[in-house]
């Protein structure tokens, strides 16, 4: 913070002036607060969807995890664009039948795709040899083979991400972890995943409170340098808090008998019903068909 708050400043007026209509410019505090509350809101929204009644929500989490892995393999092995597009269509249909808002679901997947996959796919448009599809200035040209490669990559990734998103939207995080345990995921890894998720949420809450507290005391606009100092200080305090928290949590675990070898309580409360076996068979047929048709 700059030393702008001097002790000889005039006293605040007795009556509150009406706020002037000025164009609002979001500073770093407002943007960070918005990002934090968006993330927390999204988490709560996802957990709420997972508790709705819907097609996928009614299935055993183990079936969902195994089905997702099988379909991911099918997407990876398929060399037919129509088959992959068909599988993408299936994920959209499943989202619709599972009370997951389809518009939100599509946006969620495609919003981040250009940043991660687009960067990889873009050069392929130009450098893959093949017949020219579109000529561009400076001697650049998009080849048909390059366009197909980029399209394959984008569709494969979007379908795979959609399948993973379907699982997380339709299954409480706790059940996903338990299902991974059934698949012989080491107990220590499951414990770490569970604790990471739980404490990220707590630290987000702490960060939110810190920024709100800062916002309530900021008068006027902060300079860029002040904002950077403030973010640095907040990050430092959060790091200190998380380190203290981690040592306290370790003590709490020790106090209850933890000796460095995690024994995660696996609750075998899942019951395979007829519906689950049916889903299992359908997914097996779809997977085999997709691999066969995709060759």
């Amino acid at each position, binding site marked *: 913070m700059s030393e702008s708050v001097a002790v000889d400043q005039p006293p605040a007026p007795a009556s509150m002036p009406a706020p002037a209509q000025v164009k609002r410019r979001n500073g770093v505090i407002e943007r960070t607060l918005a990002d934090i509350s968006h993330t927390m809101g999204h988490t709560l929204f996802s957990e709420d969807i997972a508790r709705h009644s819907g097609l996928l929500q009614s299935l055993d989490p183990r079936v969902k995890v195994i089905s997702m892995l099988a379909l991911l393999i099918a997407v990876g092995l398929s060399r037919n664009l129509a088959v992959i597009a068909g599988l993408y269509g299936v994920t959209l249909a499943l989202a619709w039948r599972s009370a997951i808002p389809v518009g939100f679901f599509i946006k969620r997947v495609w919003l981040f795709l250009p940043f991660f996959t687009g960067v990889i796919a873009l050069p392929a448009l130009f450098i893959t040899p093949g017949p020219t599809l579109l000529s561009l200035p400076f001697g650049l040209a998009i080849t048909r083979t390059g366009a197909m490669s980029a399209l394959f990559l984008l569709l494969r990734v979007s379908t795979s991400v959609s399948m993973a998103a379907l699982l997380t939207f339709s299954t409480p995080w*706790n059940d996903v972890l338990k299902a991974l345990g059934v698949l012989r995921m080491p107990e220590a890894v499951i414990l770490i995943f569970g*604790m990471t*998720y*739980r404490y990220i949420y707590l630290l987000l809450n702490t960060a939110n409170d810190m920024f709100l507290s800062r916002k309530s005391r900021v008068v006027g606009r902060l300079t860029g340098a002040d904002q950077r100092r403030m973010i640095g200080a907040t990050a430092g305090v959060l790091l200190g808090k998380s380190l203290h928290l981690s040592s306290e*949590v370790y003590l709490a675990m020790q106090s209850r*008998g933890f000796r460095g070898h995690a024994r995660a309580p696996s609750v*075998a409360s899942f019951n395979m019903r007829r519906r689950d076996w049916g889903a299992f068979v359908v997914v097996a047929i779809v997977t085999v068909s997709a691999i066969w048709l995709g060759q």
Partner: protein
Amino acid sequence: MNQVHNETLFDLHEVTFAYEGKQTALERVTLSIQAGERIAVLGSNGSGKSTLLKLLDGLYFASSGVIKAFGQPLTEAAFDDDVFNFAFRRRVGLVFQDTDVQLFSPSVWEEAAFAPMQLGLSKADVHARVDAALRALRIEKLRDRAPHRLSGGEKRRVALASVLTLQPDVWLLDEPTTGLDPRSQSWLVNFIVEQGRAGHTVITATHDLSIVDAIADRVYVFDEAHHVVAQGTPHDILSNTDLLLACNLSHDHVHRHDDGGEHTHPHAHPLAHTHAHE
């Protein structure tokens, strides 16, 4: 008054503890606790109450002096022995002040199951203990909920359930009423009283004087220099205004009377919020 057995559970002689060898948290503390006793450890913030509980739970070890539990010295070497560690952890349960520290599992059920799982109990025993604990604390409906999405009172119940599944003989409770509404606080006091009646040793660190009379038969008082400065019955300690003032457990309260006169008197809430002018 609980039935106190003639067995010394904890015996501390001239115990000093300093964080990283520099920041002193306890200074030459000598005290003794018998099986079945209900003890309140009183002191202001930073007086060393929480550190004492962690020493009694074998989480920290004395920088100097001797701590014995169940007749055995509490040292790091002792806890390296699996048999001793199992026997000790099975008998002593600590409920941390901060429920966010205590509740680290993804669901209430798993939180309650953590301790019996670490002690290597069979799956059937774990299920039986967890179900009994959730029932005793009336939180069966919360079993699949994530602890971080519960209210303060619910979190406290889950924290107690996570220790109750150990079925400990000794309860160590660190500021258990912090952040609780009056109803939850009253429930918690009853819970502590019930544990005492069941013959368990209950050691509660607190600066909430209003609960001391109900939860303790004997009181140790820490000053801000991290010494034990007094011990006695709740009545002896709570009626010693000078002691409470000196240890920051009471304060001078200034108020005006109808005739405009100003009046100052020591103020605390030792006994169900009754206080009198001197």
